[in-house]
């Protein structure tokens, strides 16, 4: 059986925290550059220029793209032939977050109790979604999530009779109501199916898919394009100053549903759509 030490996980996580917050992925940079070409509104174009310049400043000076360096969210796919030694996975990841956020001068944005609201001071605990998979590899995806866009999220238990139209209306109306709050241009993560808890996770997972990669099923790939078109008719535009590029992408993830249910969820990401991935 292959062994991985907890300290290896900690080191990788510490690096990933800094990498994701300082260097925006090429997928998002390319989407912003395309948006600058597509956008017609002068105010919208000006915003997009500033966003591209901002990404360059962050990279050159090694400072975070956005001051909100997020809740540390992880997706871990753990190969069941791998044995972790020297500590627990949760502790190893949290230690990596602690180190990465301290060494990278990243903001500590987590309060220890949701009502008492005292900052934990080290951006822990992380939110960790773990799944056991076949094989002897470990894949870690890190996606720091800003509070402003996270607040613009919703779950609705639709009726099966609401169908495709019901899902489209639910998503488009939610983006309309969110307006300028989640820092448009946004990425819209949509979950469809599963249960109340599962559908929210699907919407979150949709956000870590690289921009420009459609859903593998043609039906959902075309539904993603249809919702994107509808969202970009709303007129909100970059930062809500008016324009045609309200969203850079719509990503859908699905799961089978109960005969009585059609759960749907929307999780919005701002244009700083950070996600990095490592395979150990």
């Amino acid at each position, binding site marked *: 059986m292959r062994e991985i030490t907890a300290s290896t996980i900690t080191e990788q996580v510490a690096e990933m925290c800094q990498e994701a917050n300082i260097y925006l992925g090429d997928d998002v940079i390319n989407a912003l550059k395309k948006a600058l070409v597509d956008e*017609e*509104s*002068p*105010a919208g174009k*000006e*915003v997009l220029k*500033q*966003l591209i*310049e*901002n*990404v360059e*400043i*962050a990279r050159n*000076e*090694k*400072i*975070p*793209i*956005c*001051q*909100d*360096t997020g809740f540390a969210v992880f997706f871990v796919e753990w190969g069941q032939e791998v044995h972790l030694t020297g500590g627990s996975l949760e502790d190893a990841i949290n230690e990596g977050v602690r180190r990465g956020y301290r060494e990278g*001068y*990243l*903001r*500590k*944005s987590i309060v220890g109790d949701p009502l008492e*609201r005292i*900052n934990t*001071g080290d951006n822990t605990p992380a939110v960790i979604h773990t799944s056991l998979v076949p094989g002897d590899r470990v894949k870690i995806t890190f996606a720091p999530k800003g*509070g*402003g866009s996270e*607040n613009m999220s919703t779950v609705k238990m639709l009726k099966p009779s609401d169908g495709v139209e019901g899902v489209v209306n639910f998503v488009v109306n939610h983006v309309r109501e969110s*307006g*300028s*709050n*989640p*820092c448009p241009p946004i990425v819209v993560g949509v979950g469809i199916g599963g249960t109340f808890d599962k559908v929210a996770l699907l919407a979150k997972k949709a956000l870590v898919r690289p921009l420009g990669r459609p859903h593998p099923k043609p039906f959902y790939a075309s539904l993603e394009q249809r919702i994107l078109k509808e969202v970009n*008719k*709303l*007129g*909100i*535009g970059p*930062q*809500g*100053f*008016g*324009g*045609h590029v309200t969203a850079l992408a719509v990503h859908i993830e699905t799961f089978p549903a109960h005969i009585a249910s059609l759960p749907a969820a929307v999780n919005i990401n*701002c*244009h*700083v759509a950070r996600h990095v991935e490592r395979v150990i």
Partner: protein
Amino acid sequence: MKVKHLHTPLSDEDVLGLKAGDNVLISGVIYTARDAAHKKMVELIERGEPLPIDLKGQVIYYVGPAPAKPGQAIGSAGPTTSGRMDAYTPLMLEQGMKACIGKGLRSAAVKEALEKNKGVYLAAVGGAGALLSKRIISSEVVAYPELGAEAIHRLEVKDFPATVINDAYGNDLYEEGIKAYAR
């Protein structure tokens, strides 16, 4: 695109000269405050106690900056969502605050209070924290250090860019933008 230069503190005339959609460059001293600092200040106002900063003519920036690296004045420092401050903003305007900088939608009560008190709501580009930090010359914590990033900072800014969203005449750039571009 026409840009107006503002120097803090602001007068009624400064505010009344601004219209939704105007781009401004702010220079001078501004103060930061977000959720926790607003809560503390409003509790003081309600008890009739003095505030840690004089709000007359002031500009409040809704931001929780990232920590400064050695040699930097401040870390990344873009705006946070303003709607969370809606409950506090009318009282802050009554205390003399002239402008607040954030991003995102404001409530009807805030828009009314802006008209009544001759105030203005500005947006900086959300997510452009690295770029905006370059317009901040110095940063110093002046109240509530225990709040960390949420402490009140005194910032000296030079040509800090913002856009007028809600002016003192009831205009709203977010509504105007949607009207112009929805199809």
